[in-house]
């Protein structure tokens, strides 16, 4: 939710500095740097496992039978060999729901970020590249959204339009677009004056081409870092919205919704609140570690 304008400026500077390096070996350099960070590697490992599990879940879990079919008489059972993580208030297997929820959470998280980035690129690049009146108009529009606290904005949208994944995605990405617009805009402004951009202009490249081929790739570093952190935030934010009753539609599982359902039983059945809680914390922490690792790896200063 919070952001920091200064960091983006320095990110832009870094990106600009980096642009002077040879681009081809960039990825290899970043990876080599990233590899040195054991924690970040661990984070990456966790996320890769999660993504694989999420993608392959339908192979070993039947949505109808394992995820949503209730067996109320068998509710609130502790962990056993049959149900490794126990069952919830409707007698459904928590492990299956947890794994399936990874799909929902990750899908929602990544969709939100994708929309946020695309929206941010379109608005931020336009504003930054064209400058003047357009810049002013876009930025004031962005200011409107920034002036509405995110949680309240999300509540207004979800509470009035209804609980559903699309509405959640809408609410959360509306909160992200302004953030990415700002980051990209400042990157673009930082890069606009660079020699290689001037050179491209002289070669007769059009505005959109310059932005897409030359500026965006050079600004990707800070964007990716921010995006990784924002996925983590989004997953936590969805949990928060679920807490105030604005999550996704049951019987679909989602970590935040599972957590907020489980909290009702937390004193008597603490295992219920453990698993979705750990899933959220683990994912968010891993993404943060990756984000940090990437930031360090992308920072030329860290390379000596």
């Amino acid at each position, binding site marked *: 939710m919070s952001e920091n304008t200064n960091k983006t400026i320095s990110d832009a500077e870094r990106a600009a500095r980096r642009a002077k390096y040879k681009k081809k070996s960039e990825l290899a350099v970043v990876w080599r740097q990233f590899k040195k960070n054991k924690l970040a590697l661990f984070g990456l490992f966790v996320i890769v496992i999660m993504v694989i599990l999420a993608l392959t879940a339908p192979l070993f879990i039947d949505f109808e039978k394992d995820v949503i079919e209730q067996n*109320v*008489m068998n509710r609130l059972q502790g962990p056993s060999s049959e149900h490794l993580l126990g069952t919830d208030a409707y007698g459904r297997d928590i492990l299956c729901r947890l794994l399936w929820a990874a799909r929902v959470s990750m899908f929602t998280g990544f969709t939100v970020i994708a929309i946020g980035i695309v929206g941010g690129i379109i608005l931020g690049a336009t504003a930054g590249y064209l400058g003047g009146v357009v810049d002013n108009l876009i930025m004031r529009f962005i200011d409107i959204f920034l002036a509405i606290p995110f949680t309240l904005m999300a509540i207004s949208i979800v509470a009035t339009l*209804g609980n559903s994944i699309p509405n959640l995605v809408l609410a959360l990405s509306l909160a992200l677009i302004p953030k990415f617009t700002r980051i990209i805009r400042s990157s673009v402004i930082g890069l606009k004056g660079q020699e290689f951009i001037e050179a491209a202009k002289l070669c007769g490249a059009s505005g959109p081409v310059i932005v897409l081929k030359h500026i965006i790739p050079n600004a990707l570093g800070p964007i990716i870092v921010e995006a990784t952190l924002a996925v983590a935030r989004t997953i936590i934010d969805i949990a928060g919205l679920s807490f105030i009753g604005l999550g996704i539609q*049951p*019987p679909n599982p989602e970590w935040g919704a599972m957590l907020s359902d489980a909290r009702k039983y937390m*004193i008597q059945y603490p295992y219920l609140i453990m698993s979705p809680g750990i899933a959220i914390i683990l994912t968010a922490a891993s993404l943060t570690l990756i984000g940090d690792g990437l930031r360090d790896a992308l920072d030329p200063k860290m390379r000596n």
Partner: protein
Amino acid sequence: MKKQLSLVLAAVMVAASLVACGGSSQPAATTAAAAPAETQAAAAAETQAAAPAEAAPAASTGKTDLTIINTVEPQTLLPGSENLSAGHLIQCQLYDTLVMETPGARSTLVPGLATEWEYSEDGCTITFTLREGVKFHDGTEMTADDVVFSLKKDAEGSYNADAAKLLASIEKVDDKHIAVSTNYAYKPFLQVLAMPSFGIYSQKWYEECEASGTNMARSENGTGAYKFAEWQSGDYLKLEAFDDYWGGAPMIKNVTMKIMTDGQTAALSMQSGEADVFFGLDSADYDTMKATPHMVVWDVLSNGTHFLALNSTDGHFFKDNKDARKAVQHSLNREEINLGGLDGTGHVTPYPVNPDHFGYDPDWQPTPFDLDKAKELLAGTGYSGETVIYKSANSSWYQNPAQVMAEEMRKAGFNIDLQIMERGAWEDDVDAKGNSDIWNYMTWGQFPDADADLYIYLHTSQRGIEYANMIDAGNDECDAALDGGRYSVDDEERFNYYKQVADINEEEGWYAFLMTGCNFAVTTDEVQGFVPHPAVFYHIKDWSL
């Protein structure tokens, strides 16, 4: 045990309503103690013996400050306009009514601001003798004019809209007497006047407020045992004892109602000893609260019965599809719905009338749960997997049972699309407009009678009226039974009419009545004199610490 308790509780209510109807002469014979009442009388004795064991009273602490936690904030102090039980609770303290319910036996009415009442020959007019020397909170004395004025104003209030349709006139007879007439002899009418929404206040105060533009939602001048002190929106509401109360000054002097909208936080706050009484316990917290030392959890059956409505209006799935409705009936396992939806804290009550209300039949049996039969019936309708839309409101009270029922119907072969909506949007879209094939809700009979529970949902005259019969339920036979119940003053006859209604509804499958949840009340073991009330009409003046 719970089931037994529900039967017993129901029995007490029915028995009470049959035996004691008003304090004076009645046109109809009250000899209608039919078969159900007799068996229940014995059961009633049983509860009375069992009740004190629930909370062994501790020695008095001598404290005079009481803190209540409520998860709902009242809307207004003005009688007649409030539809939330949190508000009724406050109004019970601020205002008196002409007649009052007896704690523990709702239908036994005792004198309030009226000391006596008498029915006319035709049963349409009741003449009340007013209590003398009753003072309003500003010190002025209550007059017959005040009573007539406030009853008239109350009747204009939105909450009393149904009762107002009954009323023919409210008149002052002399300085000591007023007469209230109804359009026809309506058996439960006196019960209506015992609701806090028919509270009495000062005419002068009302007119002054109107003239000066004072917010009447936030001020009062009643005759109740407590005066309004302060209300911080979203935070707390404070009352203080009225020392000139006609019934004697109450023992508890200061009452604070804390508003905590999050049920879980509220429950934890109660557990950590921050209050004496707590309304709004979530069923999920029931066991934990019960296990907490010094906490007494009262299983108060709510006055609303959960039901499932199957929409037969144009364009909806169940139109002309009785077999599909029957299939739904067979797919419902009420024990399971109670367990998953209300954490097993409710009572399975398949009868349309609330167990707390007149007309309840504890022995009646619904269509049995039979999944194979449900599948067979559904297959017979030529169903080929069309989506059946089921919209439910997002409070756990509705949403949790909905999740279980949606799954049960899915097992029977229905392709259910369950949509949980924000409460406000749901009320607008479903409750008022009927835009769903299925939904679940609760009956909300304002006063403890079958007529209040059922008429609006099942009478054909109520079709298409917002919040009423939105599913095209009802037929001539059902109308006849409902009208019979409404216009009869004979208890046995009325009881049988409502049994007919229940049978017709079950045969047609319009609504499936499911269970009754609990409006739990939690008190510390220091609170004495607390008697559970389904509609939260508590009188704090009767309590002590």
